[in-house]
């Protein structure tokens, strides 16, 4: 990666013209629009004045050192962060124009259209089939034929159908780590979300499985908007269209991935991607 960067220092606060790329990207629809988001765990200020727009059918990567708030931000987008009892937030996140942090927005509805893939593969201790059918079932789809179709379609979508089609009734724990993670992606696809959040989905996997997941992400982005948190900068560079760099709960820089990796405007971004800390 060439890092000859214009050493023009930006202000500590990031230039908002960079975060509001409507001008530079008018043909893409905004899926998630975050305005002045603050989040506290008890008295710990974990996210500070986040402003960020995520675009439809792109891969948006969030990078940053551990503890920078990148996972917290991701989990705010489907309000999974609320599982921590002492959390409170301020600011606005709109999803397709609707304000999701308001109490009126049902989390179940949000999470139905914003799927999530976790750091560690977490299939349920059930059969492969039941893992995929779980989502449709809780949403009231009981018809066996339709479920069969959904299961096949989702497994195909996650490129794992050929590996598991003969053992759909077997426990998902018999799969390898990489297969389990693709199963979890398939499980998310089963309810046809618009957005898929991925929280370091390859950090527990070997390089070969990682490669497969990355290929899969490239495929999925044709139909889904994907936001991926990763500690692996090469991964962000390889698969994402845009990259946000988080540090100490703030967005230091958010831009097209090419720009971030070749011509970052903030010194701290440059330090981070060149491996000087983190």
């Amino acid at each position, binding site marked *: 990666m060439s890092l000859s960067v214009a050493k023009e220092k930006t202000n500590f606060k990031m230039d908002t013209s960079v975060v509001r790329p409507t001008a530079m990207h008018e043909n893409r629809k905004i899926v998630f629009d975050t305005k002045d988001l603050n989040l506290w765990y008890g008295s710990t200020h974990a996210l500070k004045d986040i402003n960020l727009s995520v675009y439809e059918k792109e891969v948006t990567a969030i990078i940053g050192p551990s503890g920078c708030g990148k996972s917290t931000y991701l989990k705010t987008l489907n309000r999974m962060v609320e599982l921590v009892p002492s959390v409170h937030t301020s600011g606005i996140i709109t999803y397709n124009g609707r304000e999701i942090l308001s109490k009126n927005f049902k989390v179940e*509805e949000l999470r*139905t*259209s914003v799927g999530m893939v976790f750091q560690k593969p977490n299939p349920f201790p059930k059969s492969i089939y039941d893992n995929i059918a779980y989502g*449709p079932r809780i*949403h*009231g*789809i009981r018809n066996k034929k*339709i479920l069969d*179709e*959904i299961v096949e*379609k*989702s497994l*195909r*979508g996650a*490129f794992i159908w050929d590996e598991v089609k003969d053992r759909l009734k077997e426990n998902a724990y018999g799969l390898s780590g990489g297969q389990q993670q693709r199963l979890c992606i398939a499980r998310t*696809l*089963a*309810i*046809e979300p618009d957005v898929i959040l991925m929280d370091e989905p390859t950090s527990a996997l070997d390089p070969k499985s990682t490669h497969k997941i990355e*290929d899969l992400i490239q*495929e*999925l982005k*044709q*139909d889904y908007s994907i936001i991926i948190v990763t500690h692996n900068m090469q991964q962000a560079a390889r698969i994402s269209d845009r990259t946000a760099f988080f540090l100490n709960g703030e967005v230091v820089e958010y831009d097209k991935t090419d720009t971030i990796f070749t011509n970052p405007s903030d010194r701290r971004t440059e330090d981070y991607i060149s491996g000087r800390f983190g």
Partner: protein
Amino acid sequence: MALNSKLAKENNVQVREMIEQKQKSRSFLTIFEKIIPILLFLFATLSIITTIGIIYTLLIETIHFFSAVPIWDFFSGTNLKPLSQNPEFGVLPLLNGTIISSLIAMLVAGPIGLMAAIYLSEYASDKVRRILKPLLEVLAGIPTIVYGFFAFTFVTPVIRSIWPDVAATNILSPGIVMGVMIIPMIASLSEDAMNAVPNSIREGALAMGATKLESTFKIVIPAALSGIISSFVLGISRAIGETMIVTIASGSSKNFTFDITQSMQTMTAYIVEVAGGEAPAGSTIYYSLYAVAMTLFVFTLIMNLLARYISRKFREEY
């Protein structure tokens, strides 16, 4: 591959639409979600209701009792003659029986339980411990009525063949058997306390050439003392509340005596005797049941709270 994925989304099944339709018709789900925690909370309150129920029933009838028998006579009286023409209701014979039987039990269970705990925690290999511990737990799983049978039909005759002065019903035999019953409890709780002492402390002593015995008595036991004492207190509480062994093997003599070869009655055995005797509701003897039960309840409650207090308050910070 691209085709594959396209196929995935554009299949004929329109999952999203189905889900959205279902969601509209499932508003009852939201109500259900709100009712569930209320229902579960009601279940959880049952434990509080039970406590209130116990205290309330005991208290009400005990107050009735004390309106007939002065409270001082009850707690200082050495005569318990509920069925005589001029009934007397001194609780001291029962307290005496309870304390003596518990003392005998603890003399058995305390040292043996602690020694077993030392062996299991400090000396036994993993393999031996894995065999011995569950076997010891079996002792705790035997119903007390079986111990009662054992005390009455086996231990008492054995004691009498050695020591002929011992009566057919006596406090010694059930006391010993109660002790055996409590051994696993003390052994297991004390062992937990000793296991909680970090190995680094132990190794510090052993590395200086201390024997296991020395490291145990000078390092491990002092460090685990609060847990050990609390296990003893729980053992006493268990002995005080134990019913069937003493009821069967110690008889129902209400004499105020310290002679362990003789029959004595404990508070628990008195309750069994009076309740089983179909005492008419409303009679003083019926109310005495509650006064004795209240005393028993307060005693065990204090012991249990004390045990918890000791193990919390004096817990060593490692």
